[in-house]
């Protein structure tokens, strides 16, 4: 190799190339990639509509989703009852629009809960390793070998769930291990990456390394995982409701509406009773999954090329 003074022109050319365009932060680049995923963008709109409808339920229908009216049971759709009434005389449309509140509340809160637990436990296990890691991973294994749905059912019968918050707690308590494992392995590999070593040699402490380097670097996979978790959790809640282990049957939720229609008579003659909640659950989960897919692209810089 021949050593000489640096070719100044080349250096200058290099730099002006970098300066030619407006500087875009990684967030702006990710947003651009997300916007290119059409299904994801459409899903954001549809999901926003579903959320809006649930939130605005009182303005969309004047029927009370829990008040029984034995003078008007099992009515077919009409101008007054757009989707008819159920066997207790409750308006189906009202049950469907109010039902979204419970499903979305459980899905959203449980996702936050699962993420909080997983970031703390997975982060500790991945950053510190050693016996901390060993203990947390043992607990994860334990939870993994415990079928999710069975555990919820057993816990529910034990605690005798009657409130939404208890159900949220039970679902959250059982759903964290997979995300915890993911965050742990992310942290484990990131911990050895050069920019984290650079922070350590700079004299940064554990907190700064975790919050300034490890967490931001794991944000992409964490957010993608969170959306997929939310889809799962909404599905799980609805599944529990369908076999009668969800929130109280008088509380309107999509799963409950579906559950109350599961008899020969309703299934065969009143499609307006069970088709809308089934579709609402499906569309909600589908939208969340598409958004997750879009986020995966958004956080994958390889998509830029």
């Amino acid at each position, binding site marked *: 190799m021949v050593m000489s003074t640096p070719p100044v022109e080349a250096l200058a050319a290099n730099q002006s190339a970098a300066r030619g365009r407006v500087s875009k932060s990684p967030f702006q680049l990710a947003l651009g990639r997300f916007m290119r995923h059409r299904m994801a963008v459409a899903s954001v709109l549809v999901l926003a509509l579903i959320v809006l409808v649930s939130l605005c339920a009182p303005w969309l229908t004047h029927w009370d989703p829990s008040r029984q009216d034995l003078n008007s049971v099992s009515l077919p759709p009409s101008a007054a009852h757009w989707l008819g009434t159920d066997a207790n005389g409750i308006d189906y449309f009202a049950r469907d629009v109010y039902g979204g509140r419970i499903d979305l509340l459980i899905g959203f809160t449980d996702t936050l809960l699962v993420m909080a637990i997983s970031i703390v436990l997975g982060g500790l296990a991945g950053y510190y390793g050693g016996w901390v890691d060993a203990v947390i991973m043992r607990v994860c294994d334990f939870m993994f070998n415990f*079928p999710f749905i069975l555990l919820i059912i057993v816990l529910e019968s034990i605690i005798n769930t009657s409130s939404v918050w208890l159900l949220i707690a039970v679902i959250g308590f059982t759903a964290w291990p997979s995300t915890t494992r993911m965050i742990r392995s992310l942290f484990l590999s990131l911990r050895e990456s050069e920019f984290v070593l650079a922070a350590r040699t700079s004299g940064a402490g554990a907190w700064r390394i975790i919050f300034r380097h490890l967490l931001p670097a794991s944000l992409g996979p964490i957010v993608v995982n969170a959306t997929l978790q939310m889809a799962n959790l909404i599905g799980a809640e609805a599944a529990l409701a369908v076999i009668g282990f969800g929130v109280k049957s008088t509380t309107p939720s999509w799963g409950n509406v579906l559950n109350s229609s599961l008899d020969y008579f309703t299934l065969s003659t009143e499609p307006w009773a069970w088709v809308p909640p089934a579709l609402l659950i499906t569309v909600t989960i589908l939208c969340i999954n598409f958004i997750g897919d879009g986020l995966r692209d958004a956080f994958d810089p390889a998509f830029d090329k």
Partner: protein
Amino acid sequence: MAGYVVRRLFGMIPMLFAITVFVFFMMHMAPGNAIEAMINPRIKDIAALKHQLEVQNGLNLPLPVQYWRWLVNVLHGNFGWSFGQHEPVIELLGPAMYNTLILAVLAEAFILLLGIPIGIWQARRPYSKLDYTVSTVSFVLFSVPFFVFAVFLIYFFAIRWPVFPAQNATGTGPLAGTLLDHVWHALLPAISIALTAHTVYSRYTRGAMLDVARQDYVRTARAKGIREPVIYRKHVFRNARIPLVTQLGFDLGGLLGGAVITEGLFSYQGMGYVTITAVSQRDYPVIMATTLIFAVCVLLGNLVADILNAVVDPRIRYQ
């Protein structure tokens, strides 16, 4: 290999112990018990009767003693007496396990028969319009909750056109109780599981095949003039099946444990159905037994996954 399996089997013991202890103590911490659920509250002298029944069933003993008695009994093959069904737990579970086995095998067969061919088909024409369309459809199917499929299948194939049974694990008539009758009843539940679950396999198969197809040895095979179908059969799929096998083990563990929701929806008398019934009746001995069996199935599924891995991947050797 045999030594490895034996060690893994022994390794399950602490996990099973922990799970049963957890469920046992959680269940007994809850207020109320099966005795209360069993006896008519209008009976005179209810307290005395309750006490007598509790003593009979050992429910007045300290919890660790009760657990110990349960454990000793289980190790002797005695799972206890079902409060809810009034028969030995083992007699309740025998048919349920048989039903669940049929459903699990059938569902897994559908999953594989759908998922793998679709994945291979896609991998042969990657990034084409057809591939993209199928991927999107798979994505949508993956997002549909299986109970939604179940409801629609019941509506179309059991109510609208009553072809298949949508209730119970066995029927009536001359064929009742035969294997054919069992399979016939497991058909709709199995399809409802497979319709969403197969997409995992088609995605894995496609991805793994594409990964392998990029490898140098596949290019070499092509350069040697080996025909495409042979390349795919002998080189690509042979290596691409390795990740599938792992998934298969996990699936089997889960399915054998019982598809709780599906069995509940179809009133299919398998392990999941029995568990749901037992939970609503606070039938502790049954819950304990099913929990144990679930856990064993999941653990065995993991072990099977590892063993199958070694079978299809010559690089893995267990000592």
